[in-house]
């Protein structure tokens, strides 16, 4: 049975999602019905905002129409849509920086780090399990029950950032994302099992002395130490959480991880 949070996460990702389960929840939940109305109002504004006026600007040269076919050389070497080469590595953010900008950036990062450290010291600590559960709210797409595995390049890219490999014996991974968690980018994976999706977070920077069980906000799971390599958090959600499945996934992931130098 879907709860409010699950409904809102799914709708925030795709406000026009036609899923029958979402519709069924909306039909019986007044709060989520109102939430949807607000969301769709925002969506209308968003669409209007995106529709910027693209009439030609006066300061730009006049555009010509598409040329006559005869004016152009024979067939360009453009591949078919399906055969286009990978664009995953598009240099969308890679730009050359000037040295003074780098110094300014470094100084601001240092100042930011000092400020963050001060705030961190002033705040009461939250348990690792609570932070893991809180993080789950940010990943609505992760909880889909699906047979589709993440493409190998996508999974490998996520794992490579943490210098790990994961054997196929860990199970079919349906979700892989690199998530910022407690100051580090960590792999957030979902392994599909017969009992449903199981989330695995590889917490290289979080050491625990012994396995810790937790049961918070509808999530049940365990955090287990990985000798010399922090810990892993493994969790499921919902009332039908199966402890045996959790234990199996813990064992399979623990055995399937290889640490790269």
């Amino acid at each position: 049975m879907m709860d409010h949070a699950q409904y809102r996460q799914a709708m925030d990702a795709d406000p026009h999602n036609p899923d029958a389960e979402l519709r069924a929840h909306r039909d019986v939940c007044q709060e989520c019905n109102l939430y949807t109305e607000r969301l769709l109002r925002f969506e209308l504004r968003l669409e209007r905002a995106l529709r910027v006026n693209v009439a030609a600007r006066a300061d730009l040269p006049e555009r010509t129409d598409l040329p006559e076919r005869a004016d152009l050389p024979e067939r360009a070497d453009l591949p078919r849509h399906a055969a286009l080469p990978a664009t995953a590595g598009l240099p969308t953010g890679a730009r050359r920086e000037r040295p003074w900008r780098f110094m300014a950036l470094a100084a601001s990062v240092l100042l930011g780090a000092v400020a963050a450290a001060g705030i961190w010291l002033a705040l009461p600590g939250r348990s690792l399990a609570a932070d893991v559960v809180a993080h789950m709210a940010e990943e609505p797409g992760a909880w889909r029950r699906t047979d589709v595995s993440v493409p190998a390049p996508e999974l490998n890219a996520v794992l490579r950032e943490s210098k790990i490999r994961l054997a196929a014996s860990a199970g079919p991974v349906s979700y892989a994302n690199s998530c910022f968690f407690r100051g580090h980018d960590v792999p957030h994976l979902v392994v599909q099992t017969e009992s449903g999706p199981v989330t695995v977070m590889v917490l290289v920077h979080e050491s625990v002395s012994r396995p810790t069980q937790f049961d918070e906000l509808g999530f049940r799971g365990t955090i287990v130490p990985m000798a010399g390599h922090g810990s892993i958090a493994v969790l499921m959600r919902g009332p039908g959480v199966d402890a045996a499945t959790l234990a199996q996934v813990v064992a399979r992931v623990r055995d399937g991880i290889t640490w790269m130098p």
Partner: protein
Amino acid sequence: MNDRVGGNVRQARFQALCQSLRPDLLRFAFWLSRDHALAEDVVQESLLRAWKAQDSLQDLDAAKPWLLTIVRREYARTFERKRLVTVNVDDLIAKEEPMLAAPEEPDLTELRAALFKLPDDYREPLVMQALMGFSTAEIAQELELSEPAVLTRLFRARNQLRALVGE
């Protein structure tokens, strides 16, 4: 003779299709690059490439994703050629003020400025979904991501956007 007539009809259809999709392709390129002049160049070049390669598009109904892919690739090539320097987002917003302005709806101006501030990884799938009408599966295919990863980016994009405009 019939082949020639058929070819001309297809060409005319293709040209009409390009003209009808051009505004949205230009908007997409604008939100991708955050630079109107650059977006104009990218789309113009992309349409020329598409025109030259139109025979490789077997189904005109698939023209939209086909053209979008060409625009994305052309934009990537622009980066390779120009090696653009890092710019301040506030400077970008000031530079593109005429494009972002919506005098009749001031809150749209604020929302457009917030869109400029979204990380590229979040803004691109959001524009593909909310402006271009792509499904999650189509976005996943275009960006070479899994569908759950796309949903996560869309969820984060909307949340950041709402936070930026104080909703």
